């Protein structure tokens, strides 16, 4: 860091980057909020009203969508971390074959989300290879419905497949900061593999685990594209419902209410993460 005092001019440097982001994101948030109260309305008159809020908060279908998206958010982030953590642990130190493994694992990171969705759809469709193999092995009698299933397992599967490498990168950096001395010391004191995992690796990697959990939750909670191609017929994810309300039914004010609900949920979850991270790292992070 430079030692001399910096003045107002430093803030001018921030304008191109931060200013651009704040201008665009800020204006879209502003429009979402005002329009949910009937202001800046495109159709009809612009007038302050809480009617749209009242109408949507009592709406059973919207609640279903919110619950579905919450479920997708939690399951996708838990699932991705569950898959990525053992890999990150294994890749922590170099060894034969690991360079190859590391490149192999990273491939989905560079496959766009929609393409990933399509790749997995091919596999899990009614006569897809997964069902064929399971039937051939006599594990199931009839093919399972994994695509557009009611629960949304197809969506979770796609999210996990696509995002394991992304989470792996974040987990790897927090695992890399754990020193070997700590592990050796624990081992000398008689700690077994499970104890080392539970008492050293998981707690020390917690900040990374939390960051990846939050980023994954946000991605899966606000998802539009994957749910619309692989999700259940009912309920649609909240982002899908919002887009249909706006573009198909031209009810922009109602869509704005859904938009605010998405933003608020994202903020609350992010805030919870920050609190949790503070608690875990003892307020240093």
């Amino acid at each position, binding site marked *: 860091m430079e030692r001399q005092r910096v003045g107002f001019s430093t803030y001018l440097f921030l*304008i*191109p*980057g931060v200013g651009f982001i704040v201008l665009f994101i800020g204006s*879209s948030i502003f429009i979402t909020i005002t329009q949910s109260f009937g202001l800046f309305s495109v159709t009809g008159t612009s007038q302050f009203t809480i009617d749209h809020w009242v109408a949507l908060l009592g709406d059973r279908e919207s609640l279903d969508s919110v619950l579905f998206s919450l479920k997708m958010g939690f399951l996708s982030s838990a699932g991705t971390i569950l898959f990525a953590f053992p890999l990150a642990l294994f890749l922590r130190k170099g060894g034969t074959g690991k360079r190859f493994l590391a490149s192999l694992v990273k491939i989905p990171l560079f496959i766009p989300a929609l393409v990933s969705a399509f790749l997995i759809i091919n596999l899990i469709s009614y006569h897809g290879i997964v069902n064929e193999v399971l039937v051939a092995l006599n594990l199931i009698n009839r093919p399972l419905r994994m695509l557009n299933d009611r629960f949304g397992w197809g969506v979770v599967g796609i999210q996990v497949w696509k995002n394991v490498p992304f989470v792996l990168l974040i987990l790897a950096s927090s695992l890399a900061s754990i020193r070997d001395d700590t592990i050796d010391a624990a081992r000398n004191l008689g700690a077994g593999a499970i104890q080392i995992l539970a008492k050293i690796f998981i707690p020390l990697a917690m900040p990374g685990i939390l960051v990846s959990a939050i980023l994954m939750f946000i991605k899966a909670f606000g998802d539009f594209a994957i749910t619309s191609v692989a999700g259940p017929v009912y309920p649609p994810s909240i982002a899908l419902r919002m887009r249909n309300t706006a573009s198909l039914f031209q009810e922009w004010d109602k869509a704005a209410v859904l938009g605010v609900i998405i933003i608020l949920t994202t903020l609350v979850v992010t805030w919870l993460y920050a609190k949790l991270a503070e608690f875990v790292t003892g307020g240093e992070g």
Partner: protein
Amino acid sequence: MRRDEFTITTLGTQTRKNLYILLAAFFILVQLVWVGLPILMTVLWSLVHPDYPWSYPQMFPEKLSFAQWRFVFRYTNIVRALKTSYSVAPLSVLLAFFLALPTAYALGRKKFAGKKLFMTLVLLPIIMPGMVVALFLSRVFTSFGLAQSFFGLVLAHTLMGLPYMIRVLTTSFEAIPQDVIDAAENLGATSFSKIKDIFLPMVRPGLLAGMVFAFTTSIEEFNLTFIIGTPTFETVPTILYSFLGYNFIRTNASVIALIMMVPNILMLFAVERILKSDYLSASLGKL
């Protein structure tokens, strides 16, 4: 006694080595199937001969051909979409670079109040749910005449790439040792030569990583393009979406999926060396 101990430890290392090899083989095998199988199936689907449909219970397509590839290039908008995708992406990367450079310099090298807040604000495009931003930014764009315009599309893609560009460049600027700058100043370096000989060479790897992330973000950007660009502008992802929606045509979708991912995977291997130093985790590891 000593001898016994020795044998036990060597035995221990031997078992551990075997266990390690077993684990490595397990992970590689699982990943080969996990990543390889979906891609292989898509390649096969894209090569199915139109006169010999591939259906249950055949394990492999009866006859392979490039007919689906020819069909997609001849009768769909893929060529125009490719042109749009690959002209929006470099332009938005370039714009993001110029916008990010001063900001990343200040965030990486200066001390000022509210820095943490600004670092978090930078992540807004990633944190904010894409569809909400897309829908209501489109209202803003409409009132400024930017919706359904090429320039609007470039601006939208720049917005999505900026967080990566700023964060990665900030990390690179932070990593420059102050000694080097002090030494250069003592030797009478001008601002210009400081930029040319110190800053630019030292942030180059980070810059490249930031550009790669911004570029791939732009190529796969869907929400904003779908709302702000279509139907005037179609990119490869929006075309793929149309083939996955109401008119689901697996063979055509396979071709487009491959067109989208092959350049990306090639790029991954081209920049492997950069990714190994984990720029993404270094720059996104903290909110």
